[in-house]
């Protein structure tokens, strides 16, 4: 049988193929990725689009979490200061109720209470990065101001809106409690109780009742504070979950698209050997014909 007398085109084609293999393996090693474009592995590339979306989303959830943590911790710390201030007001009230005090002494205690009232007002107007934390969703205007026309001497300009932020797939976590609910709830109005105590202190009658009323408000406020503690706990739990999800997603990405170094290196070495062999074969193929032997 006659064979193809010119093996060169076939050898060249083989050489091109091993060079392509070598380049593919080299690209995989240098980029550390097996899937560099959709046609490298269409199925993996499609999953990677979703993986990329989810891991970017997770990273954003984590960023939002840390922003929320700042807001919630500021709110919680502020409430703590308010609780301490009210406790101090109660102590003053108890002192004033002892009945042995002169009206001048009571007036000085009432002055102290008024200072605490001012402090509470200023704490209730706390803001975090330009947002008033206890204004409901009217975060851009100062929610509490002193107002003599109001029964409690304090006016609330915020609203009762609540914001929730998505910190997981469809997982919405409330981020605030409106000031009206915290400090001005009917029957548990801290400002009203303070106002009443101040008046009782000045007049010298009904101090006990007023102190009891303030105690109620304090209990209520402490109860409300639990919300912030709980939400911060939920943030912590969610952060742990998101971090592990991030790791999971990046592991999935590596599984899908990462280079299998051992296999890539061995494929590259194989391709290099094959290339050397092809070149050697080509070198021999062009060396001699019968013409060289006919002298």
């Amino acid at each position: 049988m006659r064979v193809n007398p010119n093996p060169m085109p076939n050898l060249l084609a083989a050489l091109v193929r091993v060079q392509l293999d070598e380049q593919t393996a080299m690209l995989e090693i240098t980029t550390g990725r097996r899937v560099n474009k959709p046609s490298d592995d269409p199925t993996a590339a499609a999953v990677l689009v979703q993986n990329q979306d989810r891991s970017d989303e997770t990273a954003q959830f984590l960023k939002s979490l840390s922003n929320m943590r700042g807001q919630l911790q500021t709110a919680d710390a502020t409430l703590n200061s308010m609780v301490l201030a009210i406790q101090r007001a109660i102590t003053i009230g108890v002192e004033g109720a002892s009945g042995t005090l002169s009206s001048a002494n009571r007036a000085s205690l009432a002055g102290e209470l008024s200072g605490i009232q001012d402090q509470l007002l200023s704490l209730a107007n706390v803001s975090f990065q330009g947002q008033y934390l206890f204004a409901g969703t009217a975060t851009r205007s100062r929610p509490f101001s002193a107002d003599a026309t109001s029964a409690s001497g304090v006016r609330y300009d915020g609203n009762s809106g609540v914001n929730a932020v998505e910190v997981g797939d469809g997982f919405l976590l409330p981020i605030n409690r409106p000031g009206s609910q915290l400090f001005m709830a009917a029957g548990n109005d801290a400002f009203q109780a303070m106002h009443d105590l101040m008046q009782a202190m000045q007049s010298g009658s009904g101090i006990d009742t007023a102190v009891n009323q303030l105690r109620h408000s304090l209990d209520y406020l402490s109860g409300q504070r639990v919300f912030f503690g709980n939400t911060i706990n939920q943030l912590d739990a969610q952060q742990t979950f998101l971090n592990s999800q991030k790791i999971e997603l990046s592991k999935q990405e590596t599984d899908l698209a990462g280079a299998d170094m051992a296999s890539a290196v061995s494929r590259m070495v194989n391709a290099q050997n094959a290339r050397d062999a092809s070149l050697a074969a080509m070198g021999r193929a062009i060396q001699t014909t019968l013409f060289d032997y006919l002298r």
Partner: protein
Amino acid sequence: MSGLYGSLSVALSALLAEQGAMEAAANNVANVNTPGFSRQRPVIVPGEPVVVGSLSFGTGVYLQRMQSLRDPILELRLHEETQQQGYTNALVSGMNQVEVMFNSTGADLGSAITHFFASLNQLSTDPASTPMRQSVLTAAGNLAAAFQNSAKNLSTLKSNIDLDVQQTVDQVNVLTSQIAKLNSQIAALENVHEDASAFIDQQTQLIRNLSGLIDISVVQTEQGLSLTTSSGTALVTSDRSFQLQSQLGSDGAHHVLAQGADITTAISAGKLGGLIAVRDQKIPELNSSLDQLAAGLSSALNTAHRSGFDLNGDVGGDLFVPPPASGAGAASNIAVAVINSDLLAASSDGSTGSNGNVIQMAAVHDMKVVSGETPIDFFSHLTFRVGADIANGKSELEASGVVLRQLEDQRAAISGVSLDEEAANLVLYQRAYQAAARVISTVNEMLETVINLGR
């Protein structure tokens, strides 16, 4: 006829025949690297014997003709496979340029969608913040730009391919006219019973080149080869070639016309077929997918945006310029409608600090708003389709490359020039020539003996 003079003429015929054979070998060696050349073999036949009484004397040898060694069936298969390869090659190289759009570079469409929704989540933590509102608008602008760029890339690619279609039609016309001219040259030689194999080789090679460009079928007729496209449009008949025209159609693309009839959709192989498949099927498909995505996403976001309130407490308008009702051109025309970040409708109750409507807009991320899929899932499937098209094309290309090389191998085994073989033949012819020359000198000596008899 016998006697010394008879022997002399026999030896002379051998000299001539061997010289001719030597020429065939020389020609083969000369054409060892000529593409499409088929090696030639001298056909040497014995002379008619002369009968004298009971004896029969040979009258020597003569070179009857040169025989070209080729297998027409094999050539046909080569043409077919070349058509397939031309098609797949054009398809893959066209789609390779599309694929770039889907590489995850961080600036691709998928990332733009993801980043837009991330900016919404960021805003939800402080909905009245001007920098955060601005960054949502920036992300929306990037999203619109990513759609526009993708659409623009596709239309640039389409017009490049269109140009290629026109050039390929010109190449087809050059080749068909050359093939027709060779038909007449071959006919002229064969009419006077001369060897036309050099022309046939050339013609075969040209048909091979033509096969790379367009789908053809070859029919051997009395008047030489006749070529038609596989759908039956005549390209070459006898010594006439029929030129194809490329004409700008109402769709903005060049159509291929044969004698007035539009054959664009009938061209199914060769480079031209591949180019047309990318230009008229693949790119429009992708374009309409991008339009679907742009229209679905922007409509859903607009609906959500309109249900909220901006920083001034007014009801929100459209976030994006509404897509055309038909959806066509949604990707290339998408633009952000909100210019002032104060007008971003983040609030659900009219108060500045409410983030309720940001949550509504962010929810579009997980809503099945693009033909029953979420935006990212839709984009993910689009990525798969593009990748799979190319991956399939590449493996077809590889397979047809293997087949083509095997066919080439078979063709070379029959028609290729082997230098070893030619060297051996040269020795053979040379020795035969030397022997015939020796016969002449021997006869000469004998004649001398005869002439000297009378001394």
